[in-house]
């Protein structure tokens, strides 16, 4: 549609309009600032300005002991705090060369999958809100509330849970833990159908999402995109299957993939992932092995000098921790591979040639959390 | 209904103001608007006489003039946009190709 000659020429031959989207904008999910170069309403280029939420998490790690740093990771992707904690704990365990006991692993899996559902619910609600559907957000919050209640009952916190400890768990599952999870899962089947009814077949929704922000498999791989963004482009890559961690090797589940790599496919992939997570939870509560919940780790952690990289499949994609130990109680260097940050790179590629309204949809579909992007 | 002269004076005043606009303003868009004003002044005359003579023909013509004004505005603004795109100006004294 636009050839190169038209590229430099806007509607009236005047300069391109530069529109500042954010950092205070309802749909940049926090404090992302996107400078849009516009011709009329068509995006000619984007430039992300990030760092408004930078807290120096990685630097803080160098001045805290291993246990002390654990709560900090919850503040990165604050809508999926449990997953962050899991990744960190497993990374340090790998560094220490210890393993959590089986009971702890199963409970960790349940919690993480619940967290995945919660994270996707937040994504769904805000994404729908960005595209103009008001109601799904509240339904999503309603369901998420159930999950947060389980979290609260388990560890006393709702959002930044700090649920796991290095080497296992601190808290035993409370009495009606299985029952609560089961009730939620049973209920959730019906609830997810409500979203499908509201959105999946809606022609406006399809019109707004299909063929918007298309990413091919090659582009995804080239950009390092991961998680649902990658899978929606047709790449069947999920660390839970590829490099099983926690207790994932014990459960049967499918990895949903898309075909077109557009916003609609990402929506469908995430919806299916919620169903699959629910199935994992149901399988897991069937049989939570008895036994200790804490592995053999000392009060003071002094991992041997060396370095380790461990990654898990967080709700938003591959979350990796690279930890360098110099043998002291504090890590020498921690480097985190945040999925949101990497996925955000795809924004420019996805948004070019689309309209402003699509930029909003694309930011939504990338499912970024600025806490994680900026760290 | 009042004597026709009132309407004629009003019409004349609007016409002359429009004419002043056409011949003194440099901004072509304002010139175009002044032309609309002139057309409007004509309409007042037409409708007033139509009322006086109890014949709606005048109003028919007023309607035609409105249609004509629409056509004129559309084309005029199209020209202005095209001109602005090429020359980045809307000042009439920079449009001086009507020579020879």
């Amino acid at each position: 549609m636009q050839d190169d000659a038209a590229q430099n020429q806007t509607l009236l031959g005047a300069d391109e309009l530069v529109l500042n989207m954010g950092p205070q904008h309802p749909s940049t999910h926090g404090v992302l600032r996107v400078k849009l170069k516009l011709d009329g309403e068509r995006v000619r280029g984007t430039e992300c300005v990030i760092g408004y939420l930078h807290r120096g998490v990685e630097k803080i790690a160098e001045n805290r002991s291993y246990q002390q740093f654990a709560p900090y990771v919850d503040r990165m992707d604050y809508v999926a705090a449990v997953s962050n904690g899991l990744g960190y704990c497993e990374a340090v365990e790998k560094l220490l060369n210890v393993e959590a006991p089986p009971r702890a692993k199963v409970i960790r899996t349940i919690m993480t999958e619940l967290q995945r559902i919660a994270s996707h619910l937040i994504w769904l609600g805000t994404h729908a809100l960005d595209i103009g559907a008001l109601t799904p957000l509240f339904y999503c919050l309603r369901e998420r509330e159930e999950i947060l209640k389980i979290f609260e009952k388990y560890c006393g916190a709702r959002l930044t849970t700090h649920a796991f400890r290095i080497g296992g768990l601190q808290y035993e599952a409370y009495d009606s833990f299985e029952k609560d999870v089961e009730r939620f899962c049973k209920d959730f089947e019906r609830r997810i159908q409500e979203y499908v009814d509201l959105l999946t077949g809606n022609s406006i929704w399809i019109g707004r999402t299909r063929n918007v922000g298309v990413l091919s498999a090659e582009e995804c791989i080239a950009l390092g995109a991961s998680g649902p963004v990658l899978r929606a482009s047709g790449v069947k890559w999920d660390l839970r299957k590829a490099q099983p961690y926690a207790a994932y090797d014990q459960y049967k589940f499918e990895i949903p993939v898309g075909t077109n790599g557009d916003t609609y496919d990402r929506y469908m992939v995430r919806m299916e992932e919620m169903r699959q997570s629910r199935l994992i939870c149901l399988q897991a509560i069937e049989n939570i092995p008895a036994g200790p919940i804490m592995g053999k780790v000392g009060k003071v952690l002094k991992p041997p000098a060396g370095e380790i990289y461990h990654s898990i499949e967080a709700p938003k994609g591959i979350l990796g921790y690279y930890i360098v130990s110099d043998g002291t109680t504090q890590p020498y260097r921690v480097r985190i591979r945040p999925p949101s940050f990497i996925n955000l790179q795809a924004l420019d590629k996805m948004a070019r040639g689309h309209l402003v309204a699509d930029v909003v949809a694309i930011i939504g579909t990338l499912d970024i959390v600025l806490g994680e992007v900026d760290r | 209904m009042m004597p026709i002269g009132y309407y004629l004076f009003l019409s004349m005043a609007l016409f002359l103001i429009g004419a002043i606009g056409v011949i003194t303003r440099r901004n072509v868009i304002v010139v175009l608007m002044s032309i609309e004003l002139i057309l409007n002044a004509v309409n007042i005359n037409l409708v007033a006489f139509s009322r006086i003579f109890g014949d709606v023909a005048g109003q028919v013509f007023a309607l035609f003039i409105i249609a004509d004004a629409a056509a004129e505005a559309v084309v005029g603004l199209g020209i202005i946009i095209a001109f602005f795109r090429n020359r980045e100006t809307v000042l009439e004294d920079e449009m001086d190709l009507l020579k020879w």
Partner: protein
Amino acid sequence: MTPSGYFLEHLWLIPLFPLVTAALMLLIGRRLPRSAVSFFCVGSVFLSFVHAAGAVFQLLAVAPENRVYQQILFEWITPGAMPGPGGLVNFVADWGYLLDPLSCVMVLVVTGVGFLIHVYSIGYMGHEGGYYRFFGYMNLFMFSMLTLVLANNLLLLFVGWEGVGLCSYLLIGFYFLKKSAADAGKKAFIVNRIGDTGFLLGIFLIATTFGTVRFTSQMLSDPVAYAGILETLRAMVDQGRLAYGAPILTGIALLLFVGATGKSAQVPLYVWLPDAMEGPTPVSALIHAATMVTAGVYMVARMSAIYQLAPVAMDVVAIVGATTAIFAASMAVAQNDIKKVLAYSTISQLGYMFLALGVGAFSAGIFHLMTHSFFKALLFLGAGSVIHALSGEQDLRKMGGLWNTIPATSRPFLIATLAIAGIPPLAGFFSKDEILGHVFNRHNESLIMDRYLFLWAIGVVTAGITAFYMFRLFFQVFRGRSRVATELEEHIHESPKSMTVPLMILAFLSICGGWFALPVLWGENNTFGTFLEPALRGVKDEIGGVEVGHHTLFKEYLLMMASVGIATLGIWLAYRLYLQYPKLHSKVAAAWPRLHNLLINKYYVDEIYDALFVNRVKDLSTAFGVVDAKLIDGVGVDGAGWLARVISRISMWWDKWVIDGLVNLAGKITNGLSVPVRMFQTGVFSSYAVLILLGLAILLGYYGHHMHMIVRNLR
């Protein structure tokens, strides 16, 4: 009872259909797919044909003397009063259509054959560029031709006449990138202009003589207001103001005939037609064989009333026709281009028609026109099919043996060849025989030899030559050994259905077309002649315009046998020369090298024209050039230069001080004056608006003053 009905009332639709599609094609045809182009164009001609046929049938429904339908659409040119035969007349040229037996025949031929050729063109032009352009021109041609034959007055006829000329020009030059095609188009156009000048002068003379250009006022509501040539002529003859052989009538007839010679390619203006074969073959078939070139015949037949009163003109027509017939036939003998042979054949046959007209056998001429359009169209289309099969080869010497390879073409082609050769019972036999019969009947038996007998002899010989060269063509193309270039041989293919089906239909017509006018001696009434008779009836038979000869049975048979015999002779000769002993013809040619050269070079007519006219014009311009250079420049200018030098010396001071002073003064004044004037033209529209307002103010001031006075008086 007057003719009426849907088709007659919608006579105007007949030319309109092709016009609409022509406009469509020429405006947006480029964007249309080929299927749409063919659908619209062929469809429109078919609709025309249907309407024409319907109109003819509705016309046939009434008694013969009432078979005239006139329809005046609007008054076209109304210059008002002009001097006419009885004082001032109100000259009106209307845009009106006339359907009488004569135009019936023409309109059926034009739309029918035209439709078939259009269908054929779908196949023939299928792979050519400019498809829409071709069909647009073809439809424009159809419109012009229909206007020509349906026109109810000479001026409208002239519009059609020029229209077909234009289309002919456009279509001859259809492959305008080819220089020969473009030149041929120009040639046709220029040669036709010569004829048209005469035609136009003839129309002017008619208009001043009769005060009208309308053919007839029959079936018009107000015959007085709408005077017709026929009626006026009749009245003038009755009043004795015009008589048999009146010079003015002869002048008119000759001038019109000049036009006819141009359009119908008669001696001496025939030279454009062979070159016109540069156009696509369907064009040759439609325009340069079946329809346009017969316009002259039609026109002369249409003005038969005048011709019948102009014996000298009649003789000229007959002699020119006969000359053309034999002249062109002899040229056709030596041609090697398949289309050129057919072109000369066409000229020759047109000569036949004029021969018929010239001896007063108008219906026979028209009859031959009709049959000729069938078989000549068929011949051209067949030739096109052959060319198509041979991927563009036109040289007879590189053909041969195609009889069985392209059967759907060769069989109809044989029929057409037999028809043109005059073999009974095919169409050509009847028409040709009727012409020859009429010519012979004009022969005054008391004299051993008069001009009619001579003309008859020419006709018979021509018939023989015709048979000869046509079968020469046929044998060379279809029989004998194949001389086709080997690389072409494997590509020989039968043409598509859209091309062969029209051939078959035309073959059928070539067979049966002649049966409309079975000779009287077979116990048949001459249906065709009777049908045409009301339209061709002269003003007064007893004046002696035409002596209708009486056929005796014996003489009739004798004549038939003569023409058939000579045709057979021609065929036999062709068989001997080209099929039985294929080498023989070159020996014959070698035996009479001069004659052969003369024929091959077409009697050097083009060269003669070049030498006589074209080069004379060039010489004239060269001479002017020489005069310019030598006389004017040399003597005049140089001498004057010397003189001027002398004088200029004298005048220099005068110039410098007086003239220049004045000039400079004038310039200064102008310059000074122009400064304020220039200020007005700024190029900025609002300053023009100020001027408009200023003018308004001045006008208003002037008139307002008057109004003020009026109002004061009222008060």
